C-alpha cells in the first residue's frame, strides 16, 4: 500500500477522535470524509447529521455536497433546514461539531468569511453556513484544516465562529450552551486547548513532522505541550478503509 499522504494522515487522525455512538454534525469536505471513515471503523453507531436536514445519514461515499440524494435515502429522518438548526442543533442534541476553517486563531476561533478588509476583501470566502451555531451549540467541536502561517493567524480578519473566544472563561461569559473546540487536527499534528488559558498548544506530531515545521506553519508563537506525543502511523486497515470510502466501495 502507498505511503499515506498528509491529507490522509490528517483524515485518519480526525476519524480516531470520533467515539462510537456520538451524534456528529458534519461539515462538508474533509470533516465529512473523516466522520464517515470513523463510522466504517470504530464508530459504526455514530449518528451523522448534515445541515441539509438528514439525521443518521449513512453515505457509501463522501458526498460532494451536504445535500446529495444519498444522504436523504440513507437517513433515519429528514427534516427541514429550520428544524435541523432549532430542534436539533440549538437544542443541544449534537455531541460533536466537525468543522473546517480558512483561518483559525490560538483560541480556536474560526474565520470562513473574508481575507482582508470585510468591505474590500482580498479574498471573499464562502461565509458561515452552519458553522457559527455548530461552534456555539455542539457539546464539543473538532476543527480540521491544513496548517500554514496564512491559516493559523494571530488575529482573524473576521470571526465567523467562536471557539474559546479570548481564552480563559471568556467563552462561558458569552452564554453559549456548547463546550467549544476540544481539538484542532492538521496535516502536521494535533493541537489541544491548555487547561485554564484554553489556548491551543501542539500536543502531537504526525509521522515525519517536526516541532520546527509546526512552529513555522503557525502565525502565533505556537507553544508545545510538555507531553507532546507522536501520532501513530495510519494502519493498513485505516488506510484501505479510507481509500475504499473515497472510491465509493462499500
Amino acid at each position: 500500500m502507498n505511503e499515506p499522504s498528509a491529507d490522509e494522515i490528517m483524515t485518519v487522525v480526525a476519524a480516531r477522535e470520533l467515539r462510537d455512538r456520538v451524534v456528529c454534525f458534519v461539515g462538508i469536505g474533509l470533516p465529512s470524509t473523516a466522520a464517515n471513515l470513523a463510522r466504517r471503523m470504530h464508530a459504526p453507531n455514530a449518528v451523522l447529521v448534515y445541515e441539509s436536514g438528514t439525521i443518521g445519514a449513512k453515505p457509501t461515499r463522501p458526498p460532494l455536497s451536504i445535500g446529495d440524494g444519498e444522504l436523504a435515502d440513507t437517513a433515519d429522518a429528514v427534516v427541514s433546514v429550520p428544524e435541523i438548526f432549532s430542534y436539533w442543533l440549538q437544542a443541544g442534541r449534537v455531541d460533536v461539531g466537525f468543522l473546517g476553517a480558512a483561518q483559525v486563531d490560538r483560541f480556536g476561533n474560526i474565520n470562513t468569511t473574508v481575507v482582508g478588509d470585510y468591505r474590500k476583501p482580498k479574498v471573499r470566502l464562502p461565509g458561515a453556513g452552519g458553522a457559527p451555531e455548530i461552534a456555539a451549540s455542539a457539546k464539543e467541536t473538532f476543527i480540521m484544516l491544513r496548517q500554514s502561517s496564512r491559516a493559523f493567524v494571530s488575529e482573524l480578519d473576521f470571526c465567523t465562529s467562536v471557539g474559546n473566544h479570548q481564552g480563559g472563561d471568556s467563552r462561558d461569559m458569552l452564554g453559549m450552551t456548547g463546550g467549544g473546540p476540544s481539538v484542532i487536527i492538521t496535516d502536521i499534528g494535533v493541537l489541544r486547548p491548555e487547561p485554564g488559558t484554553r489556548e491551543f498548544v501542539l500536543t502531537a506530531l504526525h509521522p515525519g513532522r517536526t516541532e520546527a515545521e509546526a512552529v513555522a506553519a503557525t502565525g502565533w508563537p505556537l507553544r508545545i505541550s510538555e507531553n507532546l506525543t507522536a501520532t501513530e502511523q495510519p494502519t493498513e486497515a485505516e488506510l484501505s478503509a479510507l481509500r475504499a470510502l473515497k472510491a465509493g466501495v462499500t
Partner: protein
Amino acid sequence: MAMAEVMTLAEAVSSLVKDGDMIALEGFTHLIPFAAGHEIIRQGRRDLTLVRMTPDVLYDQMIGAGCARKLIFSWGGNPGVGSLHRLRDAVEHEWPRPLEIEEHSHAGMAARYVAGASGLPFGVLRGYSGTSFADYTDTIAEIICPFTGERLTAVPALRPDVGVIHAQQADRHGNIGLWGIQGVQKEAVLSADRSIVTVEEIVDVLDSRVTVTLPSWIVSAIAVVPGGAHPSYAHGYSERDNGFYVAWEEIARDRETFSTWADENILRRQSAGVS
C-alpha cells in the same frame, strides 16, 4: 383565495418578477430552481435583491449576468468544489456591477424565513454572540428573555416579493408535492408575497412519498419544467449532476468564458418547460 395558475415559465417570470424585487430562489442543494433563474436572466431583470441560504452556482450565474443589486445569504460557495468566482468578482471587483451583501449564518437565515412565514417581524435564536457579523449589518440585535433574563439574538423576518422553488409534482388542483431534502422550500413560498413553483410534472394524485404539500391557493404560478432543477436534482426524477458543479469552476473563473457560456446556454436558449 385564488388557486395557483398553470402557465409557461416565461409567463410566470414575466408577470410575477419585477425589476427591483426581492426574490428568493430556494432549494438546499436539492430542487434548486435553475430553469426559473435562467428565465429571469433571459428576461433581463435588474436591481434584484437575491435571497438564498446557499447562493451556489445559480446565483453565481445571476450575479454574473448582472441581475443583482444585493445578496442576502449565509454560504456562498460551490459545494464540495470551491469558490463562486462570479460572486467573488462582484464583491472583490464590482464586476459586472457592485453587489451589496447582507450576511448571516444558516441558522439566522432559517430563523428569518420562519419569522417571515409566521407573520412575525423577527425570529429568535442562540447565535452570533462573539462573532463579527453584527459589526457589518443592522439585521442582528440583542433580545432579552422576559422570563429568565437570558440574552439571545433577534433577526428580522425575510419577506421576499417573490419566492421561487422547484418541486417534483403538482396535482390537477395545483397542490404542490415534494419529498427528499426539504431545505426551506416551504418557508421560501410562505414568507413571500408571490410565488412561482416549477414542477417535473402534473399528476392525478401526488406520490405517496410526498412529505411536504403546499396547497394550491398559496402558490401564484405553476410551470411544468421537467429537469428544471438541473444541475441540481429532483429526488426520484434525476441525480445531481456533480460533474457540472465541478466544471463550473473553470467556466466561472474567467469573465469571458462565463459570458460565452451564459450567452450560449441561457440567453440564446429557448425558454424552458412545457407550454
